């Protein structure tokens, strides 16, 4: 499937003679020199990326990094100085005003940092705004607005005015307004930055939940790396108008591209970024039909304290060295009676944070995927090694 959004070599220069500044920039001059010489401000410089259908692409940067400019170029609110922006197969950067309006009406919706709700319209009228612009009939507008409000749990407040709602509720309305036209792409410009931390966390969870159902293509702007790591399928770190690194949460935190990125990732809770699969190793197993002494030999060979016991394809339990030697002493040959069936297990997609309670037992944690297949084990020590950044 081709990417939903493809940006190549995007530039935005603010000022009266952007072409001159662009030429200087392409000749390798830096932004401060260009500003001193021409008075032109470089907003975005040489940015290229692709966003796939159904992905949440997060652009993280501090204020002044050009992230708001970038997201506004995607729906043509700001016209790029140079470069190409393909939404499906329409180049937003060069199409006519009429084509651009059609793209905005049908394909892209935007959610704003300060909600940007129309104070003179009711919640339902706000949500129906995009539909009204498209010329949808009054009855259908109302119906679809209520459906969108229902998705964010606010249908009861349809006839309130925005200023009667709390900040979190207002942004839900903003989100509903974006969803009402059923766009394929949602642009979110720091949508949760103006909210209280607790509300923000709720909204992030709610967005992820909605996304499970809706599978929109989302470009999400934030200045908060935590938020980026929670939400992003992929994350781009932006600085001074450029992308310094693009990758998954694990790639950004695991292998920061430079000091700038590692300054951000330093205080990140790594246990909520890395998943069990990142530290999984090949499981050491033994068949249920084997004898206790076979098991003891195998553990001694491998230098392990425990083995996972397989009943054919199925994971039957775990056998510890102590239990195995005890069984031999007591003359119990079969594994059936001595293996521990209450063993720690997790999903490969679980975060390390979720493994803490299991790691306490000291036993290797079995990873089973959604089909119940046994894919690997996490040695408890590896959890802490990963957190310490040693792996």
């Amino acid at each position, binding site marked *: 499937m081709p990417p939903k959004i493809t940006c190549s070599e995007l530039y935005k220069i*603010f000022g009266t003679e952007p072409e001159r500044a662009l030429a200087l920039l392409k000749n390798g001059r830096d932004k401060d020199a260009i500003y001193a010489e021409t008075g032109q*401000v470089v907003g975005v410089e040489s940015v290229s990326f692709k966003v796939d259908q159904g992905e949440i692409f997060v652009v993280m940067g501090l*204020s*002044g990094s050009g992230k708001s400019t970038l997201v506004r170029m995607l729906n043509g609110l700001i016209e790029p100085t140079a470069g190409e922006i393909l939404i499906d197969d329409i180049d937003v950067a060069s199409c006519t005003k009429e084509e651009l309006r059609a793209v905005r009406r049908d394909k892209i919706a935007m959610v704003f940092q300060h909600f940007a709700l129309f104070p003179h319209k009711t919640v339902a009228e706000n949500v129906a705004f995009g539909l009204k612009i*498209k010329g949808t009939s009054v009855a259908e507008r109302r119906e679809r607005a209520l459906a969108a409000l229902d998705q964010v749990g606010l249908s009861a407040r349809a006839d309130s005015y925005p200023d009667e709602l709390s900040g979190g509720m207002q942004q839900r309305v903003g989100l509903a307004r974006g969803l009402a036209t059923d766009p394929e792409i949602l642009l979110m410009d720091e949508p949760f930055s103006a909210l209280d931390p607790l509300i923000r966390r709720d909204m992030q969870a709610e967005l992820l939940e909605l996304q499970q159902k809706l599978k929109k293509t989302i470009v999400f702007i934030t200045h908060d790396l935590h938020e980026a790591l929670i939400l992003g399928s992929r994350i781009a770190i932006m600085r001074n108008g450029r992308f310094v690194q693009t990758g998954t949460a694990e790639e950004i935190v695991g292998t920061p591209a430079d000091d700038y990125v590692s300054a951000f990732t330093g205080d990140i809770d790594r246990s909520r970024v890395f998943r069990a699969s990142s530290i999984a190793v090949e499981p050491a197993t033994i068949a249920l039909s084997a004898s206790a002494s076979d098991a003891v030999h195998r553990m001694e060979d491998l230098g392990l304290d425990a083995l996972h016991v397989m009943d054919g394809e199925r994971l039957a339990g775990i056998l510890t060295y102590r239990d195995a030697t005890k069984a031999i002493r007591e003359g119990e040959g079969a594994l059936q009676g001595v293996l521990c069936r209450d063993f720690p297990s997790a999903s490969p997609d679980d975060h390390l944070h979720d493994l803490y309670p299991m790691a306490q037992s000291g036993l290797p944690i079995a990873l089973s995927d959604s089909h119940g297949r046994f894919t690997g084990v996490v040695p408890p020590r590896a959890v802490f090694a990963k957190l310490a950044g040693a792996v």
Partner: protein
Amino acid sequence: MDWISPSDFLSIPFDDWVNAFVKDWLVPNFRPFFRAIQWPVVQVLDGLEYVLEATPMLLFTGALTAIAWRTAGRGVGLFTAASLLFIDLIGLWSETMTTLAMVVTAVLFCVLIGVPLGIAAARSDLFEKIQRPVLDVMQTIPSFVYLVPIVMLFGVGVVPGIIATIIFALPPIIRLTNLGIRNVRSDLTEAASSFGATPWQALVEVEFPLAMRTIMAGLNQTLMLALSMVVIAALIGGGGLGLTVFTGLGRLDVGNATAGGVGIVLLAIILDRISQALGEKKSVRTVSLASTLRSFFAPARSKEPDARERAA
């Protein structure tokens, strides 16, 4: 020894130039044109005057009192009833209705001309720049100065008086429409266009409703200026309360002049309170008095934010 002055060597016959321009060029060439643009004013004025004269005093008083009560509250309602009763008792009812018809006609045309011009100024920095000095001149030039050419072009009568009133009262509604639309939060207009709104849709759906309160403040100012012109309009044949004051002045009849003046003041207070209350009612967003005043004096604030700000 006298100081040498440049006028010893050169004098500019400015008055002759203006005379030549108006008398020999403007009047002969454009008189039919100016006569023609009177037509809509005459229609509206005649219609309004007919209705107001035909409405019984008590019915009109009841209606205006009801409007004042509903929009501005009980106090203004009672004040309206008492004022109109007083005007009737001092024998100036008919004059008051004539004045009201003139003022409403002038304000109506001010709105029809001023609101579109204000919107145009809000949309285009260039247009605003061109318009600004014209409005400055309109507001500072004494109205007596343009009464003469108006009489030459339009003749004498009520309608030329209304035209002079329109010129005098037009600037505030243009300025405040411009200000109101420029002050609409930029993220709201951005939101409108991000959903694919055309400039017209953005204006009708978002900008105009949000600018309404400021525009109503402009309407109120225009209304007050129009009322203040009624005496001057009487100089060139406008009737009504202005004529009462004017004839009182001519005959040194202090009583009559005062009666006319009181009539104008009472009418002004009623219209001011009602139009202000309308502005308050439609309000969704406030523009502070300070920023309103600033906009009259300060150079236009550029609509484009500073380049550095945008980059953020």
